[in-house]
C-alpha cells in the first residue's frame, strides 16, 4: 500500500487502462486456429505407412493398456479395415470386435464362442474314422459333417479339432472360407426353399442315390 490512500487503486486503474490498448490474447477461433503442437495427443488417429496401408494390426494392445478404457476397437469400415473409435462405445452402431466384447465381459454374438449344445458324435466319429483322422482332408470332413448334421455345430468343430489335432482356428477358418458351409441350422424358409428346389427331381432317383451312397462320405444318412 502506498503512502497516499487511494494511490494504489489509481495505479491499478492506470494499469487496466494501459491494458485496454494492448494487443489482445484472444484467438478468434473459427477464423484463426490455435497451432497444435506435434506431440499433442488429444485425439486418437491411426497412422498410415509409406505404402498407404494402415499401420494398425488390430493387436488390441492399445485398448488393453488404456486405463480408463477410452480406446476401443470399432467394427470394420467399408474397405474391410479396422478403425479405432473413441468415446463411449454405446454411441457407435458398429458390431464390436469379439475380443473387445470379451474384454468388457459382454456376451459375444458369434456362435463360435457362445455356449454350445451337446452333440451326438457317433455319426461324426464314423466320418472321422472313414477319413483316418487326417487333418489334410479337412474340407471333405467338414462337408460330410454338414451333410450329416445339416450344419456345422460348434461341438462338432471342437471334436474334429480334438481328434485330428488341427487348431480350432484353422478349422474355423476353413469352414468360414467356403460359402456352402454354414454354422447355423438352416431356417424354416431355407429348408422350404431347398425342398422346393428338390421337388422336380425324381423321388426314386433320390432314393436310389441315397441307397448307393449309404455308408459313404457325403451320403444322405
Amino acid at each position, binding site marked *: 500500500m502506498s503512502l497516499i490512500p487511494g494511490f494504489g*487503486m489509481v495505479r491499478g486503474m492506470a494499469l487496466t487502462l494501459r491494458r485496454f490498448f494492448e494487443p489482445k490474447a484472444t484467438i478468434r477461433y473459427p477464423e484463426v486456429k490455435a497451432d497444435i*503442437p506435434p*506431440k*499433442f495427443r488429444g485425439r486418437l488417429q491411426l497412422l498410415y505407412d509409406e505404402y498407404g496401408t494402415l499401420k494398425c494390426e488390430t493387436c488390441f494392445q492399445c485398448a488393453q493398456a488404456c486405463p480408463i478404457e477410452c480406446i476401443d476397437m470399432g467394427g470394420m469400415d467399408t474397405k474391410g479395415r479396422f478403425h479405432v473409435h473413441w468415446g463411449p462405445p454405446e454411441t457407435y452402431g458398429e458390431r464390436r470386435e469379439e475380443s473387445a466384447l470379451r474384454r468388457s465381459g459382454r456376451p459375444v454374438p458369434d456362435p463360435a464362442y457362445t455356449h454350445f449344445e451337446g452333440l451326438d458324435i457317433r455319426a461324426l466319429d464314423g466320418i472321422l474314422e472313414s477319413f483316418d483322422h487326417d487333418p489334410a482332408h479337412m474340407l471333405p470332413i467338414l462337408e460330410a459333417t454338414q451333410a450329416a448334421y445339416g450344419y456345422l455345430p460348434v461341438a462338432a468343430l471342437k471334436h474334429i479339432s480334438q481328434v485330428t489335432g488341427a487348431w480350432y482356428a484353422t478349422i474355423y477358418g476353413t469352414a468360414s472360407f467356403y460359402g456352402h458351409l454354414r454354422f447355423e441350422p438352416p431356417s424354416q424358409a431355407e429348408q422350404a426353399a431347398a425342398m422346393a428346389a428338390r421337388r422336380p427331381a425324381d423321388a426314386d432317383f433320390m432314393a436310389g442315390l441315397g441307397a448307393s451312397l449309404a455308408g459313404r462320405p457325403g451320403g444322405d444318412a
Partner: protein
Amino acid sequence: MTAPSRTGPQPSADDPRVMLDRDIGVFEPVPPYPPRTEREAEFYTLGDGQMLLNMGPQHPSTHGVLRVVLKLDGEKVVDLDPVLGYLHRGVEKLCENADYHQVISQVDPLEYISSLFCEWSPVIAFEKLLDVDVPRRAEYIRVLSGELNRIASHALFMGWFALDLGGLTPILWSFIERDEIVEMLAALTGQRMLFNYFRIGGVNGDLNHEFMSRLGDWMSRATKQIESNLTLLNQNEIFVRRARGLGVIDTAGALRMCMTGPNLRATGVPFDVRRAHPYSVYPELDFDVPTRTEGDSLARYLLRMEEIKQSIRIIDQCLHQMPDGPIMAKLPRLLRPRPGRAYAAIEGPRGQYSTYAISDGTDQPFRMRIHDPSFIHLQSVGVLMQNNLIADTMAIMASLDPVMGGVDK
C-alpha cells in the same frame, strides 16, 4: 425464514396444473436423517435469530463441488459444516485395480490444476518399490516441468482469490499466464491439463524444440509480466484491507491442523519438502524457501506470489544445468516389484503431497494411499471462518487453495 405451513397436496406456484404433496420449492440444508453425532445435533439446532444457508455445491464461487452449510447470524458466520464427497471417484481403489503404469493416469485428475505433482509422488514411491535409478536428465525434466506447473497453479490461485474478492480482471490475466504455460506443457507432454507425462523410471518423451522455443519466449518476459499483473492487486487498498487479517491461523494452530506447504509457511514455519526431505535433484538447485509470519490470507497470497519467483529461478537453473543422457531407465514392460512398502512425499503447489504404496508382488499395487494437502487444509476451514462474514467465506476458502478433485479423491 420458514416455509408457509401447508397441509395436503398444493398446486405448484410455477404451474397450477402440477400438484405437489410437499413444498419442493424450499430446500432446507438440514439432512433428512436424524442427527448421527452430537456435533451434528448441535450444528443443526438453530439459536435465536440464526439461519442455515447452503453454499454450494452449485455456487458461482465454490472451488469445485464443495457444499458448505453456514449457520448465520445476520451476515456473520457462526458455525459451518462442510459436506464433501460430490466428486468422489474412489481413486485409491481404482489404482489398486490398475497395473503400475496405469496408476499414473488414474491419479492425474486428482488435482487437475497441477496434474504433474499428482503423478510425481506415486512415481517416486513405485521407483522406491522397484529400486530403479532414474536418469539425471529425466529428473531435471521432471523438476523443470513440475516448477512450470507450480507457476501455472499459483497464477490461477491469484486469479481465483481476486475473483472471490470481487475483482473481475485478475482471473483473466492469470488465465492468460496459465494458458501460455499449459500450451508449453502440451508441447512437451502432449496434453493441456491431464499431462500423464511421468513414467516409472523417467519421463515420456524428451524436451523438444517446440517446448524449448515457447519456454524461452515466455521466460524472457515472465517476471516482468507477473510483476505487472501483481501491481493491480498488491497495492490496491481495497484488496489489501480485505485480505489482511482474514482467516488468521497461528503456527501452533497450523501445525495442529497438519497444514503444509504455503499455508504453513505463511505462519512462519520454513517447512518445504524440497528442502526438509529432498527428493529428485532439488539438493543441487539453489532456491529460497520464503516464509511470512502473519498467517492470514494476504500472507498466503503474497507467499505464493513469492514462490512463483523462486520457481522461475529453479527453471532457469534447470535449463542451465540440464545434463545429456537417457530419459528412461531400463525397465520391463510388466512391473512386478518385490513385496514391500514405500512412501514418497513431494512438495506440491498446495503442500505436501505423498503416496504410500504396498506391493504384494503382483503387477498391481496391493494398497495405495494418497495423502492430499487440499483435504487436510479444508479441515481447518471451521477454525478459520468462524465469526467472519459471508463475503469472506469464499475468500478464506480460496486462500487455502483447495482443489475438490483432490479433496474428494
